[in-house]
């Protein structure tokens, strides 16, 4: 796909149409196409022609902040503009590269309604994950959280992520009971990565859907127990604490079980 984008216009000249075919595609199709574009290209479609002007605002928002040029402040300003401009719904919101100064403000934006994929990092590790993140619980399919304390209340909130297939947590403090509540609330989870998280010494996996589990590091040992995981195919632990153990009770499909020194994120 990268090759197609690199072709100079002249080389594709024989394929250039004689007339504007694309603009007569139905709006719902143009919306799909726009929603696949990086945010800058998507916004620029508003200036192609009158037909195209309203289309970006009626296609699901695909906002990966790393595609916005400029320093942190410029990027943050652009994001605030986009979130105030787009009526929603949103497909993707990836913020990993940015120091977010107003997490609650952004998460509460109507533009992010029905969000399906999120990558959300807090600016400082001591900050709790805002409760407003649960606003997307019903629609999230892919979630990556980083650098925060995860729901450290006396009683963990009730987690209900009916569509969540992929969960990644990095540099997160999460208590054992909260973690298990979270996993219990993910009925279709297929992939779980815990990277340099701590707060739990014991993790029991009881999942009819999990296919891949990866854990990396941690400040203290953790006993991982695979109690029942009929679809588990890959289990990988890296940078193990000497006191970490694994106990496999039931994982009939487990094919890869081991330790990696790199490419952890390519699990």
């Amino acid at each position, binding site marked *: 796909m990268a090759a197609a984008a690199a072709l100079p216009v002249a080389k594709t000249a024989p394929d250039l149409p004689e007339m504007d075919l694309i603009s007569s595609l139905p709006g719902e199709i143009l919306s799909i196409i726009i929603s696949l574009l990086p945010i800058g290209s998507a916004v620029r479609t508003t*200036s192609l022609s009158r037909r195209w002007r309203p289309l970006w605002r009626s296609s699901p928002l695909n906002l990966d902040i790393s595609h916005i040029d400029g320093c942190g402040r410029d990027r943050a300003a652009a994001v605030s503009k986009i979130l105030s401009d787009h009526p929603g719904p949103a497909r993707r919101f990836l913020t990993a590269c940015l120091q977010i100064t107003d997490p609650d403000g952004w998460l509460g934006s109507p533009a992010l309604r029905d969000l399906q994929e999120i990558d959300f990092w807090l600016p400082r590790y001591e900050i709790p994950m805002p409760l407003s993140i649960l606003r997307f619980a019903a629609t999230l399919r892919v979630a990556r959280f980083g650098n925060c304390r995860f729901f450290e209340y006396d009683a963990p909130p009730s987690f209900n992520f009916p569509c969540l297939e992929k969960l990644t947590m990095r540099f997160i403090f999460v208590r054992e009971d909260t973690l298990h509540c979270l996993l219990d609330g993910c009925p279709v989870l297929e992939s779980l990565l815990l990277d340099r998280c701590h707060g739990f010494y014991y993790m029991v996996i009881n999942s009819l859907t999990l296919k891949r589990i990866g854990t990396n590091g941690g400040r203290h040992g953790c006993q991982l127990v695979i109690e029942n995981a009929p679809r588990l195919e890959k289990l990988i632990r890296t940078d193990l604490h000497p006191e970490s153990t694994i106990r496999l009770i039931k994982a009939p499909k487990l094919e890869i079980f081991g330790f990696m020194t790199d490419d952890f994120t390519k699990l």
Partner: protein
Amino acid sequence: MAATPADASSSSSEAVVGGEKSNKMITLISSDGESFEATEEAAKMSVTIKHMIEDGCADDGIPLPNVPAKILSMVIEYCNKHAADADDTNKHVADPADADEDDDNNNNNASAGEKEDLKSFDASLVAVDQATLFDIILAANFLSIKGLLDLACQKVADDIKDKSVEEVREIFKIENDFTKEEEEAVRKENAWAFNE
């Protein structure tokens, strides 16, 4: 797919029931009257066709008045290639833009070599002129074949992304019908995006 009494009275190429995949052939008729055969399994990659089969409308062949022969044969090629691999295709929300994250799109049962084959097949299927590509998109949309629709739309997105507004207009022959004031207003709305 359990047999119902209605099934027993239709075509003689009826398949064994009880969990085995049906070898029943479905006839698809293009807008220009050409007939194509596809296995039921491949044909059911189209949710539209799947419903027609389940409603019992498929026995005399399915007319597709929106899909010309040239496009229909490409669509069937796609379905044939992907049907063998699909693991509840329409349930997985494949995100082609997620190339480095997603290691198993619809191809849960494919080996690494097979996945590479499928990827290059997909790439060559959509390496066509714009008119054909848009016809594929319209057919995939009409037939509700999500994987093919995503694939073809991603190709168009790849041709648009990271290009200037002028370049995109040139490639797609889009006429700039803004007044000067309108165009300035649009660019000002999201100035950050227009540093070209």
